[in-house]
């Protein structure tokens, strides 16, 4: 409490800039690291840094600075993203991983609205992601609709198909509702597998994105440098994540977020004060599936090929584990959690099959010491205090 008074807006800005710089450099090293030694050093360094900065109150200072200057912290985060994309301008593989992190996180923003805010657990996140990919594959191959619109329509299709689930999900509670979504996820994968029109088990080709007459798959060079064709895709993914993040962030700090929280925590009190339980759950479920759908649509265009095996129950679990590992309901935790869940196993290739063992143990250890996730959800503050 006392510290709060000492954090002036100017000090907060400096604090945040330093944090952003350190994190960017760290992620850059992490993405660059190839050898087992360097990865091990980086992991140990991260764990030590987290422990030490908590011990000496640095974490608290950063949190307070971020609360003080929310807009600045968001722009710095976008800046970090841009810097990393620029640093890896020619590395296909790293850029592809970054796209994956950003778009999985976008889908997880949707899951946060569903699970974190209104309490509707969705174990079919990957299915809605997949619906978006398949819708994009079909629409982009067979129609002349502009691709930006195709992505949007894919989101709408995911939301509409999701509304088929509304009745069983709303009639059941808790574990039972979760079971309904699990069944749907399996149904989706099986349906795609047996459906020859959608390519069956072999899957479908997805055309690359064509943005205002530029085909993104062509690749280009700038100032004599070969730029990976993944760079524009990474920028688009960053833009999509940032846009959805801004929306969900506003949602949490509004009557909508408050209503969803009250519906989640006490349905009886909620109805006594006029809240329509069904209305808020429908809005959350539909909105979440839309976000998963648009993320899936763009992801499909990036990987150029979609198959049923990309959207299994395991992938849905991966998404939920990102949501929970990041800190249920705290959207700022999604990116670090997605990095751990998606990039770490790739980086641990050298121990082969053991990588999943190590990675799974790490997730368990993190949740053992931080049961609320990496960045637990903060108490809602609608608007930051005006600068003094």
């Amino acid at each position, binding site marked *: 409490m006392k510290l709060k008074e000492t954090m002036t807006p100017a000090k907060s800005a400096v604090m945040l800039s330093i944090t952003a710089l350190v994190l960017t450099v760290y992620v850059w090293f992490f993405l660059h690291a190839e050898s087992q030694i360097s990865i091990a050093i980086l992991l140990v360094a991260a764990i030590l840094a987290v422990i030490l900065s908590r011990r000496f109150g640095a974490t608290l200072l950063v949190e307070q600075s971020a609360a003080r200057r929310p807009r600045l912290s968001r722009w710095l985060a976008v800046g970090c993203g841009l810097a990393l994309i620029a640093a890896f301008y020619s590395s296909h593989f790293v850029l592809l991983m970054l796209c994956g992190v950003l778009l999985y996180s976008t889908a997880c923003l949707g899951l946060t609205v569903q699970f974190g805010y209104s309490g509707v657990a969705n174990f079919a996140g990957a299915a809605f992601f997949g619906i978006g990919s398949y819708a994009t594959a079909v629409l982009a191959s067979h129609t002349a609709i502009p691709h930006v619109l195709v992505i949007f329509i894919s989101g709408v299709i995911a939301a509409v198909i999701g509304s088929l689930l509304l009745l069983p999900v709303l009639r059941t509670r808790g574990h039972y509702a979760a079971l309904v979504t699990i069944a749907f996820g399996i149904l989706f994968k099986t349906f795609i597998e047996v459906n020859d029109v959608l390519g069956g088990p072999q899957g479908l080709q997805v055309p690359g994105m064509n943005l205002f007459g530029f085909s993104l798959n062509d690749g280009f060079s700038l100032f004599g440098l070969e730029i990976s064709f993944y760079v524009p895709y990474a920028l688009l993914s960053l833009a999509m994540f940032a846009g959805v993040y801004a929306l969900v962030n506003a949602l949490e700090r509004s009557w909508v977020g408050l209503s969803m929280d009250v519906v989640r*925590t006490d349905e009886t009190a909620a109805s006594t*004060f006029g809240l329509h339980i069904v209305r808020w759950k429908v809005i959350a479920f539909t909105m979440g599936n839309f976000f998963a759908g648009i993320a899936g649509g763009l992801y499909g265009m990036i990987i150029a090929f979609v198959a049923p095996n990309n959207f299994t129950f395991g992938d849905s679990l991966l998404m939920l584990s990102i949501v929970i590992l990041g800190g249920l309901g705290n959207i700022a935790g999604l990116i670090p959690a997605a990095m751990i869940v998606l990039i770490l196993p790739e980086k641990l290739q050298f121990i082969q099959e053991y990588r999943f063992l190590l990675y799974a143990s790490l997730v368990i250890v993190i949740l053992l010491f931080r049961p609320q996730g990496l960045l637990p959800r903060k108490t809602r503050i609608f608007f930051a205090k005006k600068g003094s």
Partner: protein
Amino acid sequence: MMAGQSLISVDKLTMRFGGLTALDELSMTVHEGEILGLLGPNGSGKTTFFNVLTGLYKASSGSIFLDGENILGKTPQEIYRNGVARTFQRSRLSLSLTVFDNIVIGDYQHMQHGLIFNLLRRKAFRAEYDVYVEKVKALLEIFSPPLVDRLFEPVDSFTMIDRRRIEVCRALLSQPRLLLLDEPSAGMTHDETDELMQDILQVRRKLDKLSVVLIEHEMNVIERITDRCVVLNYGKKIAEGSYVEITADPYVQTAYLGEAA
């Protein structure tokens, strides 16, 4: 006191849970602007009556008229919009949410719920939000000024007494016509109960015609603040009248103390 028009009139209200009759042909009236004490031993149907009145339970038969309109069978949401607000016997606050969050939701009916308004028109939202912050602060100023400085702390860090005050504020924020208080003094000392009741009376002076129904076991609270009492036993009304009248009533004495030896 002021024998105004009847705000609530209940006629032959019956509520059965399987073989148990929780409310048995209950008929009673709540007048505009009065404070009515609802008494009775444990299990006599007081809380069930609140739950039926607020639409949480569907009564088996009978009718409840609110200002001439039958509200039996309406949803809790509709009844709330008709101006009925309540507190719960066991506090029902969202513990992880702040004091402000918990109180402000009480005026849900007047908030703008649109997605466009909430997500995209942030300036307009901010203006509405600022008005609500002032409203909530003004109400807390009456009930517990120290809470004003802790407006954005989560409710789970507060004592039971503060939580109860927060619940009363939540119920009062929408300026209801009828306030239902389910044992507000449970777990409180005499002084604290006194203070809470005085605060409620103070709000009532500002809110024209607010009626209050109070479930209470503390007899001195009943004596000091109610205009009239209704006593229930086994879901039936066994007595009605002023505090002096009902305490002199032999049926009431039997219900509370058992058969005279």
